[in-house]
């Protein structure tokens, strides 16, 4: 493995290797010295064209815990805002000796372009591209489900997962569907027809328009953020109507089995897709998802950068 561009390209063994490695990495957060020497002398560049707080901080912390040097490159206020192309930015980073580039970009496919255009010699990690994919989010979600529902062992055979909300604009949903399918889980997407992408019937999952029919049958329910910044058309009449039909509130939560967990990739719109009561309940694992994100990203960085550089490609 040289790059991590898509959750769909991970086979079962590789995905499990990442989850097992993350489990070992997670023990570090309980130690007094939260640092490993593994990536000493390697440089990781966080190249963020789109706003992000938690993903960037998570990658930064993961790289620093492995002793890599981290450079944060935000497009705002940089040469990019002066009109520099992705290629020239990449060549600059290459000249500075970046061993890995963690890229978030508003265009779907930008990480693929960066990885395959021969501009840079290092690894490329997709930290979210447009409405395409966000593989490390899917990995941390799978890690969280495995920990809660399968005792932290093996894959996710038979685990039933509901993903609710703005599937159309959600790279989190796409990456999750692909990875969960690889790990053997059964996914049901829940959304109004206007928020489902064209060709959804080809995806390896079920689709429902009614959240109340899905809730009693799942082991994990993932609420997606309503991405108003990507919504240029009227996808639903009013926010209140969306919240009433697809939001998860206290009453609706009673339909969930007791063992089920409530997930959200963040940032949450409390009162929109999820109520404060649900977000603060014992079944909600959002805070844990953030902690698991650091462990999973440490595992990915170690597996991509920790060994000898592959000479192929």
């Amino acid at each position: 493995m040289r790059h991590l561009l898509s959750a769909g390209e991970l086979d079962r063994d590789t995905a499990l290797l990442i989850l097992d490695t993350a489990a070992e990495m997670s023990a570090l957060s309980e130690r007094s010295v939260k640092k490993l020497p593994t990536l000493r002398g390697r440089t990781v560049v966080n190249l963020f064209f789109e706003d992000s707080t938690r993903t960037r901080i998570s990658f930064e912390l993961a790289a620093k815990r492995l002793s890599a040097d981290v450079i944060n490159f935000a497009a705002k206020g940089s040469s990019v805002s002066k009109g520099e192309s992705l290629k020239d930015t990449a060549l600059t980073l290459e000249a500075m000796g970046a061993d890995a580039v963690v890229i978030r970009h508003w265009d779907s496919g930008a990480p693929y372009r960066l990885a395959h255009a021969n501009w840079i010699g290092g690894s490329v990690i997709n930290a979210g591209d447009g409405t395409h994919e966000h593989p490390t989010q899917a990995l941390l979600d799978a890690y969280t489900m495995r920990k809660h529902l399968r005792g932290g062992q093996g894959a996710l055979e038979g685990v039933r997962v509901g993903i609710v909300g703005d599937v159309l604009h959600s790279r989190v949903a796409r990456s999750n569907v692909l990875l969960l399918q690889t790990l053997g889980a059964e996914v049901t997407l829940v959304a109004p027809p206007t928020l489902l992408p064209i060709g959804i019937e080809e995806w390896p999952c079920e689709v429902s328009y009614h959240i109340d029919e899905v809730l009693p049958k799942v082991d994990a329910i993932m609420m997606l953020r309503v991405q108003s910044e990507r919504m240029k058309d009227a996808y639903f009449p009013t926010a209140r109507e969306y919240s009433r039909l697809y939001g998860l509130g206290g009453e609706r939560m009673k339909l969930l089995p007791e063992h089920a967990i409530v997930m959200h990739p963040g940032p949450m719109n409390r009162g929109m897709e999820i109520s404060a009561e649900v977000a603060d309940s014992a079944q909600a694992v959002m805070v844990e998802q953030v902690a698991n994100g650091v462990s999973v990203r440490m595992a990915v960085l170690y597996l991509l950068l920790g060994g000898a550089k592959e000479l192929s490609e």
Partner: protein
Amino acid sequence: MDSARAHDLRTVLSGDDIARATRRIAHEIVEKAKGASDLVILGIPTRGVYLAQRIAAAISEIEGVEVPVGSLDITLYRDDLRLQPPRALEPTSIPAGGIDDKTVVLVDDVLYSGRTIRAALDALNDVGRPAAVRLAVLVDRGHRELPIRPDYVGKNIPTSSTEQVFVRLSELDGTDAVEIADGAGA
């Protein structure tokens, strides 16, 4: 294993020899530590962990107290990480009482270059601050590349660096034995 069998494979320690060696090491640890209090036994994966468990069990039998035993994976501290593809990690489990102010006995199957132990000392340093660190190995085959020496040795086996030493333990391999293969073709 089959390729090893094809070469000249001789047994240098039998199952009984291994049992006697681990027992003797247990006695020596207790003697030097003047008891079993404040001891923590940490095995280095993979086979060091099983040896550590055997030594801890023997100490418990001798002294009549439970000795904390765990495992310490050193993969992330290796000095040859960049020479090979990334390795899968082995479990690390530090006993609940921690290692601060304890006497830690590191246990490994074969002591060779000493680089594994160097990595283990670095790893320990990040876990806590033991009062002392000792080293127990089943086989010392020589050829040290670092200034490291064991405190407890099952058997000193002078080898040539082309030979290979195989430690087999029943927990993993179904049988207890230490064998040496002439490594000329390996």
